[in-house]
């Protein structure tokens, strides 16, 4: 048995189902007073609601809204198509974009850190792109140093890094990079030494000085270990650097090549210098010769057949520890017999401007003598002429030319000075006064 409310609800539903069709005029219903008058009123109300103009969408509005909805649908479809192609961009909407940006930043950061770390750990040489990163990092560290002491400390570390880099470049394939690094290292030492010396006398200064001394020792020791691995030009350069660091290295002061015709045609090469030994080996034009050294009073004598020694341009020596020296200033002498009679000396080859300190030193000391000899030889016939040229207002170029030919570019200045003196002297002696 249904309750009254349920009955009323059912009755209303029946009425609505039957009446929700054509509109029934309200006047016909309002006047009725049947027991279900309320139901009738409710049905009328329902019908009125259903047909109320206020609840009907305006056709123009509907048309406008339809276009707007379809346009929005088009945009959404395009967005979803892109999202399906790149779903990872759109998952989580804004959060995903933030994650992507964070990842990009991390990659950039990581890449930079990796480059810096690699630059620090792999000891890149000047031929490596990371060298610039390393240099930049070192300069940055120096610029951020807040005191001379910290700056000196950083410079010492940079020096150690350069030494480590040299170690890794000590092979024939990295000759240029090795050379450049060595030059940088030498400059670095030349820079930090006065900087540390200029520090105020505090405990830090002595500590830093001790560190510098220890570092120089380490560099010397390291260079000696690198010498065997290096090609000959780098041996020469390293030997020069060792000399700069105060190591005992061979120095050529004079080379004399004496050609003896009798009884056999042979050549004696006399190399005079310091830190030579009977184990010193000879190289002629950078080619080793098998003849051994006869060591005598700081002079190594090498005797070889003439055929081996054609067109001498450079004479080099190398010790057992692979330190080396080279010169192109060679004094030639010819003797008819082994006793040295009828000697003629000749300064044959010019200085080709080789890069050894030994050679430079040699030239500074020996150029005067060489120039005198050359002058004498050249002026065997034309002595007056040359004297006129030197002492007169005329052409000094000849003299310079002669000197240049003898001694090369590097010693032009010295030659100028030496020549003036020696020529003056020789003129005075040989030719009387003008």
């Amino acid at each position, binding site marked *: 048995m249904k309750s009254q409310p*349920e009955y009323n609800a*059912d009755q209303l539903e029946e009425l609505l189902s039957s009446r929700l069709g054509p509109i029934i005029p*309200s006047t016909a219903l309002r006047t009725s007073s049947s027991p279900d008058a309320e139901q009738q009123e*409710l049905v009328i109300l329902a019908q009125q*609601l259903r*047909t109320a103009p*206020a609840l009907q969408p305006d056709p123009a509005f509907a048309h406008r*809204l339809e276009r707007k909805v379809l346009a929005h649908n088009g945009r959404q479809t395009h967005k*979803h198509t892109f999202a399906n192609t790149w779903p990872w961009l759109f998952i989580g909407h804004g959060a995903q974009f933030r994650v992507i940006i964070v990842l990009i930043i991390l990659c950039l950061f990581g890449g930079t850190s990796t480059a810096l770390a690699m630059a620090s750990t792999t000891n890149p040489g000047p031929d490596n792109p990371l060298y610039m990163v390393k240099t930049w990092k070192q300069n940055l560290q120096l610029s951020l140093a807040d005191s001379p002491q910290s700056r000196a400390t950083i410079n010492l570390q940079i020096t150690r890094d350069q030494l480590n880099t040299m170690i890794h470049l000590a092979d024939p394939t990295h000759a240029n990079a090795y050379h450049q690094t060595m030059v940088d290292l030498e400059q670095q030492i030349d820079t930090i030494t006065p900087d540390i010396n200029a520090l105020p006398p505090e405990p830090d200064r002595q500590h830093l000085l001790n560190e510098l001394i220890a570092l120089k020792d380490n560099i010397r020791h390291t260079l000696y270990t690198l010498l065997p691995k290096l090609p000959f030009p780098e041996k020469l350069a390293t030997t020069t650097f060792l000399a700069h660091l105060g190591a005992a290295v061979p120095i050529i002061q004079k080379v004399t090549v004496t050609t003896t015709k009798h009884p056999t045609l042979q050549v004696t090469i006399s190399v005079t210098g310091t830190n030579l030994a009977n184990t010193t080996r000879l190289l002629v034009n950078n080619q080793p010769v098998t003849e051994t050294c006869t060591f005598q009073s700081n002079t190594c004598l090498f005797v070889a057949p003439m055929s081996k020694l054609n067109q001498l341009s450079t004479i080099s020596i190398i010790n057992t520890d692979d330190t080396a020296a080279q010169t192109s200033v060679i004094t030639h002498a010819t003797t008819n017999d082994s006793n040295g009679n009828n000697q003629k000396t000749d300064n044959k080859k010019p200085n080709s401007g080789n890069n050894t300190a030994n050679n430079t030193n040699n030239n500074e000391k020996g150029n005067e003598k060489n120039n005198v000899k050359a002058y004498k030889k050249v002026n065997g016939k034309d002595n007056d002429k040359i004297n006129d040229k030197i002492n007169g207002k005329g052409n000094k170029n000849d003299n310079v030319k002669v000197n240049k030919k003898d001694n090369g570019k590097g010693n032009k200045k010295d030659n100028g000075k030496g020549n003036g003196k020696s020529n003056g002297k020789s003129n005075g002696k040989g030719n009387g006064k003008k």
Partner: protein
Amino acid sequence: MFSWQRSIEEAFSSREERVPVFEHVLKRAKKGESEAVATLYHHFLPAVFGYIAARVPDRSTAEDLTSEVFLKMVEGIDKVRTTEETGIAAWLFQVARVTIAGYYRHREKQPHCVALESSFEDKNNTIRKNSVTLTNSSDTDPVTCSESREEWQTVVNAINHLTEDQRLVLVGRLILGYDITTIARMIGKQANAVKALQFRALQSLNRLLKKANPPAAALPAQRHQKRREDDR
């Protein structure tokens, strides 16, 4: 409204046929096909507009809010899991409800506008006296418009006093033309409960309108028509 309903009935000729047709249309709409989206739009526009218009004071606001609802439909249609018509209807009404709530929240935050004229009623009376002799058409009669607007506000207030379920039943039953079973599925209740909701909704509405307008519970259009008949 009949034209809308006819189009729907033509599109979905019988209930049995409507189900697979609707699911097919919905599937295409989720993919973004314009034709399917348009079909859904036309199908649900009367109900959504009627639901919103019955709850807001003026037509322009109802149109704005209806636009919002259908734009959200386009944005969210592919995320809706249901494939049934009643499920989509329930979802749209939920969106509409949230949209209307947002509208009223926004309106509350706005400062109350005070009319510059001293007395609105005095002015209205003056206009009314003058307009009786001047106006020719009831459609353009500002008095009628004013009265209609005010009375419709009464209806809106009355509908807003109903519960949400009651509102959904009325809209589903009267505008969408759903039967009791379908509405029951839409709002998640039993059929008997839906009948009871329907009865109580109309009864409450009738009582509220009678209370607001003592002579009769007629809606504005019908009351105006009655007044004109009385004037004659």
